[in-house]
């Protein structure tokens, strides 16, 4: 029996029970489809997070409170009280050529008559707009005077603006209320685009002093953003900041620093490790459905072997060897999973298209996930087809022929 015969016998057998073959394939289709879609979501999230981080600003260095442990952003962020305005001022005055913007960022419920939304409220200084590369679409950004006078003014992000006031409504001059305090909107930024999980247009920016004293009632800052003059001076400036803050915080051992100084590359790699974990999690949940699909294949193949016992007996009687029977049933299982794998890839593509079109999440179907899907479906075919095929090939021909 050569391979074209094998293929023919196999397709013939599968087509003579279309409904069952179809339902069995469905399990694999859903499994492979969801693995591909999940990996596409993860990959898309990763890409968009990286893109967002790049667009935060160039030559950016961020100082965060919390211990400096191999660039893990979240380490010790709960104790986010170690950085102060004075630290920011010291960096600005002691290190030459840098722009510095401290901020205190918290989420608040923001209210306008008849509407409200939960958004992040960034209390910061005028330098922020330049360091974080925001452009003002209309109105103006907060000024030093407003910071000094604890003015109740706010610059609004386009997403927040449309959430609160609706699309196409000019928010300038409108009043929003945060924690019972009214803020006058003085400007709106140009959209940076939102992608996936990170919406960069959903915020309110207010003077840092206002945020500290009127809203939060604290005097620390959550992060300090620093812009280095150029790429080459980044490492040097990072080191200077570290030394300066260690000295100011009276810490002699850099290992026990109560802050971390990171550049964009650090942030990107940290975010990547987070999204990787997330991707693996999604994919393994989808993988479970693939295993269930595989069990479906095995179930069908076992039923088929039982149903076709007489046929197997006959094939053996007319000269089929163990290997022929084994191959035939294995081929049926593999063909099922391959058909399922192929349709699953198509489904995965469609799903990720749907997700990015209707849910606004960026997705990317990678070649890797397609190869993975094909590999996995072949392996599932072999693994779950092996036992039924073995069983078929070991049947005694005469007992098989007598089987009712």
């Amino acid at each position: 029996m050569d391979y074209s015969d094998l293929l023919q016998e196999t397709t013939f057998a599968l087509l003579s029970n279309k409904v069952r073959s179809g339902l069995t394939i469905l399990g694999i289709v859903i499994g492979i489809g969801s693995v591909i879609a999940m990996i596409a979501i993860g990959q898309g999230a990763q890409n968009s997070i990286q893109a967002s981080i790049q667009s935060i600003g160039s030559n950016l260095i961020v100082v965060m409170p919390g211990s400096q442990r191999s660039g893990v952003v979240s380490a010790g962020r709960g104790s986010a009280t170690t950085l102060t305005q004075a630290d920011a001022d010291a960096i600005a005055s002691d290190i030459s050529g840098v722009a510095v913007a401290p901020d205190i960022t918290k989420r608040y419920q923001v209210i306008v008559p008849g509407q409200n939304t939960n958004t992040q409220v960034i209390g910061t200084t005028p330098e922020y707009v330049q360091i974080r590369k925001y452009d003002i679409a209309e109105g103006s950004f907060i000024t030093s005077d407003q910071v000094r006078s604890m003015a109740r003014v706010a610059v609004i992000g386009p997403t927040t603006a449309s959430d609160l006031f609706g699309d196409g409504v000019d928010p300038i001059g409108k009043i929003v209320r945060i924690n019972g305090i009214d803020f006058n909107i003085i400007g709106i930024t140009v959209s940076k685009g939102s992608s996936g999980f990170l919406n960069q247009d959903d915020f309110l920016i207010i003077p840092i002093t206002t945020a500290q004293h009127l809203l939060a009632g604290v005097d620390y800052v959550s992060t300090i953003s620093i812009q280095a003059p150029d790429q080459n001076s980044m490492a040097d400036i990072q080191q200077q900041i570290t030394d300066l803050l260690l000295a100011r915080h009276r810490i002699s051992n850099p290992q026990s620093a109560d802050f971390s100084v990171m550049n964009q590359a650090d942030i990107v790699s940290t975010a990547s490790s987070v999204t990787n974990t997330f991707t693996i999690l999604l994919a393994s949940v989808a993988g479970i459905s693939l295993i269930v699909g595989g069990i479906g294949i095995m179930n069908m193949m076992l039923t088929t072997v039982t149903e076709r016992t007489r046929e197997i007996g006959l094939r053996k009687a007319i000269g089929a060897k163990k290997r022929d029977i084994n191959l035939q049933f294995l081929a049926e299982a593999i063909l099922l999973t391959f058909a399922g794998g192929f349709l699953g890839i198509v489904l995965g593509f469609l799903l990720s298209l749907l997700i990015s079109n209707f849910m606004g999440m960026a997705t990317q179907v990678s070649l890797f996930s397609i190869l993975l899907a094909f590999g996995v479906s072949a392996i599932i075919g072999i693994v779950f087809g092996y036992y039924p095929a073995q069983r078929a090939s070991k049947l005694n021909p005469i007992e098989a022929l007598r089987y009712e």
Partner: protein
Amino acid sequence: MIEIKNITKSYYPGGVEAKVLKGISFTIKDGEFVAIMGPSGSGKSTIMHILGALDSPSSGEYFLDGKDVSKFSDDELADIRKNKIGFVFQAFNLLPRATVVRNVSLPLIYAGIPKKEREERAIKALRSAGFDESRFYNLSNQLSGGQMQRVAIARALVNSPSLILADEPTGNLDTKTGDIVLGTFQRLNAEGKTVVLITHEPYVAEHAERIIHIKDGSVLEDKKNENKRVIKL
């Protein structure tokens, strides 16, 4: 050449021994036309399965062309069945959802014959079994018992085996078509093939050169058929 010596076969339905064959010995030379005759349940099909290397005896020896069949591996047995033997089963054993031609060409797949030749040979075999030309591509579960019988015969012939084992090949046929089938076997025998015909009907057995009479698992009588009926096709 078939030589069986003191073959026994026992089954153990429900744990109790049932002796189906109780020491059968005979020799069939190449080119012979032998009928194995006996009442229902006497063990004829069991003998055929053993002769066809499909089943193994509980004790006794079986030499096929001088070689001890019990020494063969499963794959070697499969090769013997593929190359030397054509079976016509009592229960036909056709693939129900496959066409007539496909059923008949099935043994050729395992013999590694190219696709085009398979179909030609299947059609030739169907013709020589007297199968209705207009039904070559019908599904085999849409045939009458007699038609299935002829498909089963064609399938046994398709690989031009040297030994044909036919279990009640005329059981479902009327006398006229039965005679055609018996004539076919006589013709094949004249062409040099060994034919072993299993039947419970004396009329059918009389078409053979020699009749082995089985009863209750033993050979009752084994003699040359003096007045052989010859069918002229």
